[in-house]
């Protein structure tokens, strides 16, 4: 009987055995090195988790700002170490809750924020100098950051003490998640505005988290996830350099976000390869001098499209292995999905179990006791190098096509991902790819009833009432002035951030601001890929 070949989705074949022969082409210093030293293959810190564990940051938010504020306080009380805010779709798309397109979506997949009033409630009793907050927000990231800064000011916290992250990565939205508003030019301008503003005024804040996660969850391979993300990062860096900033002024605050899926060693090798490549790009291509600019800092989410509705409790096991792979890959911040997330946002109990999964890893298993425990493994080092070569090959292909913006507007990236997604679906349908509970070890679940988080139908009404109340007590003359000014500044070269902050202080709504920009710059038109 011939043995079945073991081939990763990226086409890398796993050999029956790995020996010294497999790593003889690698230079122990230049390719592998030591933790905390260039090229950082083994991690960005010398002692990694011995000094400090990764941030445990569970993505969370739903309903009214008050509902979410309570969930945050609960999670912090359970030992979570940072906040990660989920916004509802109207907020992500720059629409107020009373917009006709917001129907059915207000407070559903995240919290609803349309005025500063909402943001104040969201962080009530949460001093912004003692927590860091990550916002999964893109098209409207500059506006949400502006509102967050308004809250800081009201709490009396200086901007220099504010820490956190906005995702602020529009390019992947055009490809994979669809939460876009404006065309690439104006979107990139908003992103550069936030990076420039943070560099000068909010130095501890990460103004962008360049995300591969969404490519991955849309169906691509680990190599594509890495290559598309790094190619996006190159576009952003070039846009900021064009604004006139020096690479070492902003590169240390660039951060990344990925999905860790099921193939354990492939995921570990992916992170090690990207860390090394990033350091090389920053140092050699962009001539960054500050070693902090070379550091590839990343967060992950474990779960996503690997979570299955069949025998859903099994998802906890999947997520635990993914979390272990992330830690062995050197992660800085992690969100572990709850097992009921294929159905809805998690119940409080399931959200707690998901957090406990990370805590067991960090506090019980001992995997944190020494940095990069897999360093030097014949298999892991060899796979890291193979992944690196394939990632570089794809980045070069994208650059030869004119870069990421061009590859996206032409639909090239979307097609690449769709082909993989379709292959994956067919492999699962045919049983070639094993999915426990789906095409292996199935049980009859017809009669099972799960207790799930229920969407509160009153949220939309409450949010619309709150918005109407704000509109009736604010100075509407000032609102008009702000909107006129924002329109003018948007057409100029000036940074929009200070004007957004001033506008939100006078309770201009998110939808009002976004409408003005839409009138000036239009919206993105999706290329046809089918």
């Amino acid at each position, binding site marked *: 009987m011939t043995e079945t070949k073991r081939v990763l989705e990226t086409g890398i074949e796993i050999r029956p055995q790995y020996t010294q022969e497999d790593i003889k082409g690698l230079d122990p210093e230049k390719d592998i090195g030591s933790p905390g030293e260039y090229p950082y293959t083994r991690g960005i810190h010398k002692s990694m988790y011995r000094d400090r564990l990764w941030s445990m940051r569970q993505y969370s938010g739903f309903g009214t700002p008050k509902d979410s504020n309570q969930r945050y306080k609960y999670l912090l009380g359970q030992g979570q170490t940072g906040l990660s805010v989920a916004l509802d779709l109207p907020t992500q798309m720059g629409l107020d809750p009373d917009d006709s397109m917001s129907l059915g*979506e207000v407070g559903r997949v995240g919290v609803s924020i349309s005025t500063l009033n909402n943001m104040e409630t969201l962080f009530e009793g949460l001093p912004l100098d003692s927590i860091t907050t990550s916002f999964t927000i893109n098209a409207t990231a500059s506006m949400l950051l502006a509102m967050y800064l308004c809250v800081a000011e009201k709490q009396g916290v200086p901007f220099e003490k504010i820490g956190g992250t906005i995702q602020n990565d529009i390019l992947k939205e055009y490809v994979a998640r669809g939460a876009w508003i404006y065309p690439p030019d104006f979107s990139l301008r908003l992103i550069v505005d936030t990076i420039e503003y943070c560099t000068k005024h909010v130095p501890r804040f990460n103004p962008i988290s360049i995300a591969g996660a969404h490519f991955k969850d849309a169906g691509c391979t680990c190599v594509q996830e890495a290559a598309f993300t790094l190619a996006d990062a190159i576009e952003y860096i070039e846009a900021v350099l064009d604004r006139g900033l020096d690479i070492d002024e902003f590169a240390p605050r660039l951060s990344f976000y990925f999905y860790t899926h099921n193939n354990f060693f492939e995921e570990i090798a992916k992170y090690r390869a990207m860390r090394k490549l990033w350091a090389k790009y920053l140092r050699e291509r962009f001539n960054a001098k500050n070693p902090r600019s070379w550091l590839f800092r990343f967060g992950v989410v474990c779960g996503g499209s690997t979570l299955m509705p069949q025998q859903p409790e099994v998802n906890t096991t999947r997520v635990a292995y993914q979390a272990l792979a992330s830690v062995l890959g050197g992660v800085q911040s992690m969100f572990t999905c709850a097992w009921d997330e294929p159905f809805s946002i998690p119940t409080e109990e399931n959200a707690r179990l998901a957090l406990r999964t990370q805590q067991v890893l960090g506090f019980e298993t001992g995997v944190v006791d020494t940095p990069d425990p897999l360093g030097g493994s014949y298999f892991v080092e060899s796979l890291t190098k193979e992944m690196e070569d394939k990632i570089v090959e794809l980045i070069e292909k994208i650059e030869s096509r004119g870069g990421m913006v061009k590859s996206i507007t032409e639909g090239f990236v979307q097609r690449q991902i769709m082909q993989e997604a379709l292959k994956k679906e067919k492999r699962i349908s045919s049983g070639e790819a094993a999915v426990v509970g789906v095409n292996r070890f199935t049980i009859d679940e017809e009669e099972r009833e799960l207790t799930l988080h229920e969407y509160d139908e009153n949220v939309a009404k409450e949010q619309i009432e709150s918005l109407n109340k704000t509109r009736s007590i604010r100075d509407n003359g000032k609102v008009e002035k702000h909107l006129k000014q924002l329109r003018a500044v948007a057409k100029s070269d000036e940074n929009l951030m200070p004007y957004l902050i001033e506008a939100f202080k006078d309770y201009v709504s998110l939808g009002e601001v976004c409408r003005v920009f839409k009138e000036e710059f239009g919206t993105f038109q999706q290329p046809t890929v089918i």
Partner: protein
Amino acid sequence: MTAERKIRILIASPGLDGHDRGAKVVAYALRDSGMDVIYLGIHRTTEEIVIAALEEDVDFVGLSMLSGAHMILTEQILKMMEKYQIGDIPLVIGGTIPKKDVTRLKELGVAFVFPTQTPLDKIISALKEYN
């Protein structure tokens, strides 16, 4: 429908949700199985979808919804289909649909509900066998 005529299906995502992996994968699979697929993409209003269904003379309207807003959006599209007098075209819903909502959607008049992880073959044969 006659034997020569290919099955025509419109696929779209109504509302604000931008997750289109499922819609696209199903669109590709239906096309590969010999159907004519009109893919309208994401961020569509219910009226845009219904007008497209009318103009394209489709046999099925397929909607993908993952955000949880499927009940209200389905009610809205059914009303819109009545308004444009195409209430007889079977409506097919896919996405993140909890079990209890599968029943509720069928009570509203939805022909098929395919929650995530429904095998592609099952979707193809269900549509082909429908008459």
